[in-house]
């Protein structure tokens, strides 16, 4: 039995939920340490003297009478240099350091700080002593990795004169600046803490307009997401959610990538860990790992820590956003996070909503996605940063009417609907073009005109129309047969097939095809559509549909996506060839008609 008055006592243990009593001064969402092995836990309910705690580690062996220690603070992450290239669990414990200290398995009661206390950083001040600063202002920089410059900011709530600034080599706990007035001053270290459940403040939120280029054609051209926007990817198992998430993490033109493996497979994180240091970022020429932070709370790791992992992730994302970076955050999968909520809610014996999920599922999801956005950062000057959130959803049985998908669709602006039927046909990415949508399209189309060509928007509209038409025509073909179609309709079917196979389909495992720049996407789509435009013109003139369809130039269109980025003029040449071929059909026909007449 515990006698100490500043320590609480366990009265109940039920899976990840522990109820304690006599805890001094408990506050909602305060962090506590549970049991003699001091497992991490968080207060999630107060009922009279009873305090419910969700524990981030296995609770086996805990029992009534065991102590619960208050920490007085909320669950927080450590922010500072060293985040990038790290892999953390759901409560920011570095998995690499855990392995070094504890071996191949994650034992209980592991206590390793998020940032290394021994590693040293070269700090270059960018303000002088005597300068007036306020919260969010940049004090200096650290080259965190080859591509990421870490900007050390004045912590929240601190302002005044820079009394002291210390450049040079520092550990994260060293004081690098003293700020304030002569009678009251604050010491600033490289390491700052932030409670994960509170969004970091911003000056203003702005409407996102600039597209996030992911290099994936079906995304960038058909259903683009803007920098600072939100998107979701629901799909049954085997439809390629994780591959899409990985592709975005690999090729998105963001400055910083945050990848949260939330309740998914261990080997998938291993794959990222193996690939990312090898793969080269097409924008910076450096390994992808140099801009990536990984959070891995795999499906077999404690369920409460899974609940925390998305908050840990987005708080780190906000920290880099505040430095003025564009951050892309992938959460794979938000369904597992929702299931963690459901499990805890069940243990709390709360009245359930749909399918056992708590009634607050929608609000929690919405407030998570709302932490995305394009913002004016909190500082005295002008600085913009953004967080784009892409959440995977794993609907049971692929049924999109389930609560998590529905609650997600209410808040996100982009929907990439994956379909297993497409995956079985080996059409990848298996994004169904008829059900997916992007609400950023209007804004993004304006940007396209500036970035690539004013023609782009029209091409996209026409291609989309073709695909729509195809699905209608397919119905007719299924009922009456292909003979029922007019030549114009036959051509539409063929062109739509070309859009699907030669443009939408993209092989993530092919070195060249894995990534397409926006320029290449434009040229490729123009080339594919040239067949449709010039083909219809030829048919108008009376050319046989057979000839158009059987034209060998189509083989070349099919191969065009494998043309590397530095030979894009070959796609333009091909497009000309397509048009020439079709015109030749027409002129041959004219000659023939002239001869017949003769």
């Amino acid at each position: 039995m515990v006698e100490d008055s500043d320590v609480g006592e366990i009265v109940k243990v039920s899976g990840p939920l522990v109820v304690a009593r006599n805890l001094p001064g408990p506050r909602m969402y305060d962090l506590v340490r549970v049991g003699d092995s001091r497992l991490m836990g968080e207060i999630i309910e107060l009922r009279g003297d009873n305090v419910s705690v969700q524990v981030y580690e296995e609770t086996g062996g805990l029992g009534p009478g065991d102590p619960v220690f208050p920490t007085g603070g909320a669950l927080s992450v450590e922010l500072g240099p060293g985040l990038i290239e790290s892999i953390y669990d759901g409560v920011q414990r570095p998995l690499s350091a855990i392995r070094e200290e504890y071996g191949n398995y994650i034992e209980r009661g592991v206590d390793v700080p998020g940032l290394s206390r021994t590693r040293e950083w070269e700090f270059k001040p960018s303000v002088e002593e005597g300068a007036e600063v306020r919260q969010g202002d940049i004090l200096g920089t650290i080259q965190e990795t080859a591509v990421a410059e870490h900007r050390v900011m004045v912590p929240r709530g601190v302002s005044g004169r820079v009394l002291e600034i210390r450049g040079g080599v520092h550990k994260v706990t060293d004081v690098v600046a003293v700020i304030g007035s002569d009678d009251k001053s604050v010491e600033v270290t490289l390491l700052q803490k932030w409670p994960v459940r509170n969004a970091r403040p911003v000056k203003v939120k702005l409407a996102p307009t600039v597209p996030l280029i992911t290099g994936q054609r079906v995304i960038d051209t058909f259903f683009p997401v803007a920098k600072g926007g939100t998107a979701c990817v629901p799909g049954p198992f085997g439809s390629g959610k994780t591959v899409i998430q990985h592709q975005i993490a690999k090729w998105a033109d963001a400055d910083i990538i945050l990848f949260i493996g939330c309740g998914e497979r261990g080997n998938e994180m291993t794959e990222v860990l193996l690939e990312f240091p090898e793969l080269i970022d097409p924008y910076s020429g450096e390994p992808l790992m140099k801009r990536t932070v990984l959070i891995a709370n795999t499906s077999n790791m404690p369920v409460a820590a899974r609940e925390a992992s998305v908050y840990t992730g987005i708080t780190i994302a906000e920290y880099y956003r505040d430095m003025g970076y564009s951050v892309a955050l992938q959460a794979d999968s938000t369904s597992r996070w929702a299931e963690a909520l459901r499990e805890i809610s069940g243990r709390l014996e709360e009245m359930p909503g749909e399918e056992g999920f708590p009634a607050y599922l929608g609000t929690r999801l919405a407030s998570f996605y709302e932490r995305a956005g394009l913002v004016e950062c909190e500082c005295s000057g002008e600085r913009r940063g953004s967080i784009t959130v892409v959440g995977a959803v794993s609907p049971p049985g692929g049924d999109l009417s389930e609560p998590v998908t529905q609650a997600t669709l209410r808040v996100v602006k982009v929907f990439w609907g994956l379909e297993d039927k497409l995956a079985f046909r080996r059409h990848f990415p298996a994004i169904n073009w008829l059900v997916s949508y992007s609400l950023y399209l209007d804004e993004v189309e304006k940007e396209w005109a500036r970035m690539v060509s004013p023609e782009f928007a029209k091409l996209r509209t026409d291609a989309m129309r073709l695909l729509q038409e195809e699905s209608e025509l397919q119905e007719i073909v299924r009922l009456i047969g292909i003979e029922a179609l007019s030549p114009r309709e036959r051509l539409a079917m063929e062109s739509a097939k070309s859009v699907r196979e030669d443009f939408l389909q993209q092989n993530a495992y092919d070195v060249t095809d894995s990534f397409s720049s926006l320029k290449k996407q434009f040229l490729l789509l123009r080339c594919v559509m040239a067949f449709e435009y010039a083909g219809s013109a030829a048919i108008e003139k009376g050319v046989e549909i057979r000839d158009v369809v059987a034209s060998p130039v189509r083989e070349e269109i099919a191969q065009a996506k494998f043309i590397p980025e530095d030979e894009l003029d070959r796609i333009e040449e091909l497009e000309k060839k397509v048009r020439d071929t079709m015109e030749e059909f027409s002129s041959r026909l004219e000659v023939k008609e002239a001869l017949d007449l003769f």
Partner: protein
Amino acid sequence: MPVKEYLTVRDIVGPLLLVEDVDGAKFAELVEIEFPDGAVGLGNVLEVNERTVLVQSFEDTHGLDTANTRIRFRGRGMELAVSRDILGRIFDGLGRPIDDGPEIIPEKRLDINGNPINPFARDYPTDFIQTGISAIDGLNPLVRGQKLPIFSGSGLPHSKMAAQIARQSTVLGTEEEFSVVFAAMGITFEEANYFISEFRRTAAIERAVLFINLANDPAVERIATPRMALTAAEYLAFELGMQVLVILTDMTYYCEALREVSAARKEVPGRRGYPGYLYTDLATIYERAGRIKGEKGSITQIPILTMPEDDKTHPIPDLTGYITEGQIILSRDLHRRNIYPPIDVLPSLSRLKEKGIGEGKTREDHSNLSNQLFSAYARGKEAKELAVILGEAALSDDDKLFAKFSDEFEEKFIKQGEYENRSIVETLSTGWELCRILPRGELKRVKKHQIEKYLKD
């Protein structure tokens, strides 16, 4: 500390016992339940609330009463005693020997719940396992450290297939210690007996460990069985350095046992009455497969489950598919046509195949050939469906060839003997041989030089 004994059982509901006035019970602690007739069963603590403890009995609660039932708390979680001598032995679902052999003298006792493998410590599975079954090796290959379930239906020959895989699996070009851990959950005596005699007959029993919980054994015991098996597997793989293949059959019965406990606890159910934490629970089993950096051994898992009504969207196959690295789906249609193994290759998938095949692993043409076979078979099946509606005459000449291909493919590639062990080279050659049926111009997925090399007359 002397073990305290309690006679304070208040409620018995299904497999659950509520014990009052208990001091110092711990969550997940092992419990001994002494029946009024003197028999002793095991259980574990599901919840402690002050001095009230909820105990789950692994034994059937038949014959228990509230007056004379004695409860002893063991002060530790459920453990499995392991040593090298577990090889060749048969245990019940709770790890007690049932083969008339001696008790195991433990080298150590391991907590059956294990600890999660640190994702950072994992090594990516890349070694191709040759199972000798063409439909697996050729199209959906298994790699060491993978978890690849078989989605079956009642009455389909999944047991035969699993036994064949266990018998034939080898990693090419290696002579490493190989062992099989087999966990039966709720299967019939006949099925279990089939495995045991199969292992005996081929002397595979020498390198096998069996945990048997039969259909008439207590259902709740099944909740511990796969964990027993995986604890044994982890010991063999990561302490003795063996390559371990774990067969878990049938996961459907495991999940039903879980549902039974959940219902008795009056928990809010998820889909079809299964508990909301079914995904997490299954993950703690499946995720124990894998390889670890710097360790010689590995754990490869083949869980078998029967899909109720052959429905892939049922929560058990659905959640399994979200955790495992692919799935092998059996087809009733193929089985009816007497094709063994009746593997439905199109919806089957091995997520790790790309890294396990190709030059230096199997052969450089493996990936392309398998894509070719996939797409040709898919097209052939489509053509055949069309022929059913519109008549054979409606097919184009090419489509007729594809239809023929799909028939031959099923007969020659998928179909094979129960004791036929095809090398990967034989499998690939059969595949190429079948490609001859197709027009040369339609072989778009394989490269020109591969056609020249493997298809020359």
